[in-house]
C-alpha cells in the first residue's frame, strides 16, 4: 500500500501543476496587474516604473516568472500580496480558515448525526411512510439551492419566529457573535445553527438515501441472519452488525464530498456574513483581487486532490478486501 499511495501522490502532481499554470496565466492576463495603479499615477516617472517592474521581476521571461511564483507558492508559503489590502495573501487566508473549518466540521457532524439513524431506520422498514418521506426529502435536498435555503431559514427563524420569552429573533441572521457582547461558546453555537443547517441539509438527505441502499444490501448477508438467529435484539443487529459495514462506503463518500462542502460554504458564508474563506473569496472576486482568488482556488484544488487520495487509502484501510495493484 505505501507504494500505491506514493504512486497516486505522484500522479496528482502534474494535475496540480497544470492547474497552477492555468491560474498563473489567468492572473497574468487579468487587467489591472500589480503595476496598474502606478501606471495611472501621473506622479510616477517612467524611471520609477521601470525600477518597480524590475523589483517585481516583471521584465523576466514568463516561464521564469512562473517558476519563481510556483517555488514561492508551494515551498516558501509566499502566496503573493493582496492588491487591495497590500497584505500577504497567506496571512489573510490563515485568518479566515478557522471560521470555515468550524462551519464545515459542524455541518459534517450534523450530517452524520441525522443521516445515519435516518438511513438505518429507513432500511429496516422499507416502503414504510418513513422511507417514502425520506425518498421525497432526498430529492428535495438534492434540488434545493443552498443560498435560497439560507435565505428561507433567515426568513423563518430570524424574522417570523420570535423567542416567546424575550421577543427576540429565535436565531441570529449572521455573523459569528453578538455585536458588543462578550465572546462565549454559547453565543458562537447560537450563531452557528442556521449556517450549519443550510450547509448540511442537501447532504443529510443524500447520505441517508445512500446509507439506506447499502444497508439493504447488507441486511441480506449471512452474518445478519446469523445474528438474528442467535437471538440478538434487532437494534444490535441493525446498529452493531449491519450499520458498521454500511458505513464503510459512506466514509469514502464523505471524504470525496468534502471539497464540495467547501464550495457550499462559499454561499452560506456569504448569506450569513460568516467571516470565512468563502466570504474572503467573494469579496476578492468583487474587488478583482487576483492574488487572493488564485490562492483560494489553488488551496481548494489541493484539498480535492488530497481528499481523493485520502478516500482511496482510507477505503483500503477500512475494508481489507480491497486490493491495490
Amino acid at each position, binding site marked *: 500500500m505505501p507504494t500505491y499511495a506514493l504512486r497516486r501522490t505522484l500522479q496528482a502532481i502534474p*494535475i496540480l501543476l497544470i492547474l497552477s499554470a492555468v491560474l498563473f496565466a489567468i492572473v497574468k492576463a487579468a487587467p489591472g496587474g500589480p503595476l496598474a495603479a502606478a501606471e495611472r499615477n501621473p506622479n510616477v516617472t517612467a524611471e520609477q516604473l521601470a525600477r518597480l517592474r524590475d523589483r517585481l521581476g516583471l521584465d523576466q521571461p514568463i516561464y521564469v516568472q512562473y517558476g519563481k511564483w510556483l517555488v514561492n507558492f508551494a515551498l516558501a508559503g509566499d502566496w503573493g500580496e493582496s492588491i487591495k489590502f497590500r497584505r500577504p495573501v497567506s496571512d489573510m487566508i490563515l485568518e479566515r480558515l478557522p471560521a470555515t473549518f468550524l462551519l464545515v466540521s459542524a455541518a459534517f457532524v450534523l450530517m452524520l448525526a441525522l443521516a445515519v439513524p435516518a438511513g438505518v431506520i429507513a432500511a429496516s422498514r422499507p416502503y414504510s411512510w418513513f422511507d417514502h418521506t425520506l425518498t421525497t426529502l432526498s430529492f428535495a435536498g438534492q434540488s434545493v*439551492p443552498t443560498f435560497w435555503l439560507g435565505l428561507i431559514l*433567515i426568513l423563518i427563524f430570524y424574522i417570523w419566529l420570535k423567542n416567546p420569552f424575550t421577543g427576540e429573533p429565535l436565531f441570529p441572521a449572521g455573523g459569528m457573535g453578538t455585536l458588543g457582547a462578550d465572546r462565549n461558546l454559547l453565543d458562537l453555537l447560537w450563531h452557528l445553527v442556521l449556517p450549519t443547517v443550510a450547509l448540511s441539509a442537501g447532504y443529510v438527505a443524500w447520505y441517508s438515501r445512500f446509507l439506506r441502499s447499502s444497508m439493504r444490501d447488507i441486511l441480506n448477508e449471512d452474518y445478519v441472519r446469523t445474528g438474528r438467529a442467535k437471538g440478538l435484539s434487532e437494534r444490535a443487529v441493525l446498529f452493531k452488525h449491519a450499520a458498521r459495514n454500511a458505513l464503510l462506503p459512506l466514509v469514502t463518500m464523505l471524504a470525496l464530498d468534502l471539497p464540495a462542502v467547501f464550495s457550499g460554504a462559499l454561499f452560506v458564508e456569504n448569506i450569513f456574513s460568516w467571516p470565512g474563506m468563502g466570504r474572503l473569496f467573494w469579496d476578492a*472576486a468583487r474587488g478583482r483581487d487576483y492574488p487572493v482568488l488564485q490562492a483560494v482556488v489553488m488551496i481548494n484544488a489541493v484539498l*480535492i486532490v488530497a481528499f481523493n487520495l485520502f478516500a482511496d487509502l482510507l477505503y483500503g484501510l477500512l475494508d481489507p478486501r480491497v486490493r491495490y495493484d
Partner: protein
Amino acid sequence: MTDAVLEREPVQGGAAVPEGMLRQVWRRFARHRLAVASLVILVGLIGAALAAPLNPYDPNAQAPVDKLQAPSAEHWLGTDSRGRDLLARLQYGGQISLSVGLLSTLLTLVIGTAIGAAGGYYGGWIDNVLMRFTDAFLTFPTTFVLILISALLRELPYPQLKNSVLVVIIVIGALSWMYTARLVRGLVLVLRERDFVIAARALGASDARIILGHILPNCLGPILVNGTLQMAFAVITESGLSYLGFGIQPPTASWGNILEEAQQHIFRAPWLAIFPGALIFLVAMAVNYIGDGLRDGLDPYLVRGAKG
C-alpha cells in the same frame, strides 16, 4: 438489455430508436407518477415563461412609486425595489434561466460524449491523454473557478464577452462535462467489443459511422439520464452565480439575480426571496424526478415496487 439492443441494430442513421421502443419507454415512464407530474409542471413553467409577452408589465420598467409592493391584484407577485413587476421579471428571467440550463446541458453532453466516445473507442494513448485531461478538470474546484473566470471575462476588453448569458452557458458547460465523459467512455468500452460493432467494421464502416451510427445510439439512455442530473445542476449553478453577482448581469433578469437584492429587503419584501428561489427549487426537483422516471423507463428489467 441484450435483446432489445440487438433487435434494433439493423436500423441505421437517423431513426435509431424505432417507435415500439419509444412506446415501451413511455409506458414505463408513465408508471412513475411523480415523474409524470414533474413533466407537467416543467412544461407548465416553460409555458409560463414563454407567455411573458402576455403580461402587461415591462420587466425593466422602473416605477419607484410602486417599489416593494406586496402581492396584489395589480402585481400578482408584488414588485421589487425599483417598482418592477416581479411576475414579469420571473417570466423573462425564467426564459433566461431555463435556456441557460438547457443550452449549457447540451454543451456538457456534446463535449462529454465526444471526449468519452473518442477515449473509449480508440483506447491506447488517446484514451490515456483524454482521461488525464478529464482528471485534471475534475480537480478544479468548480464553483470557485466559475467565479474566477466570470470575474476575469468581464474585465477583458472584448464587448462580446459582456453578453453574460452566452458566457455563463459556455463556462458552466466547459466545467461540467467530466462526468458525462467518464460515463460515455465506460459504455463505449463495452459496446465496441460487441458483435454488431465488429460486423460493422468488417463491412468497412468508417470509425465516425461506427461511433455515431452504431455505438452512440445505444448510449442514448444513460446520456439522457445524466443530462437531467446535469440540467438540475446547471439551473442551480446559474442561479447561484447570478445571486453572487457573477452570472447573468442586470438589467437582464434571471431567477438568481432577482434573489441578489432579496436579502437586503427581506424584512419588507419576503416575496422577493420566496418566489424566485421556489421556482429554481421546483425546476431542479422536477428535472430530477423526470430523470428518475427516465431511468425506470429505460431499464427493461425493472419491476416497480421491488426496487432498492
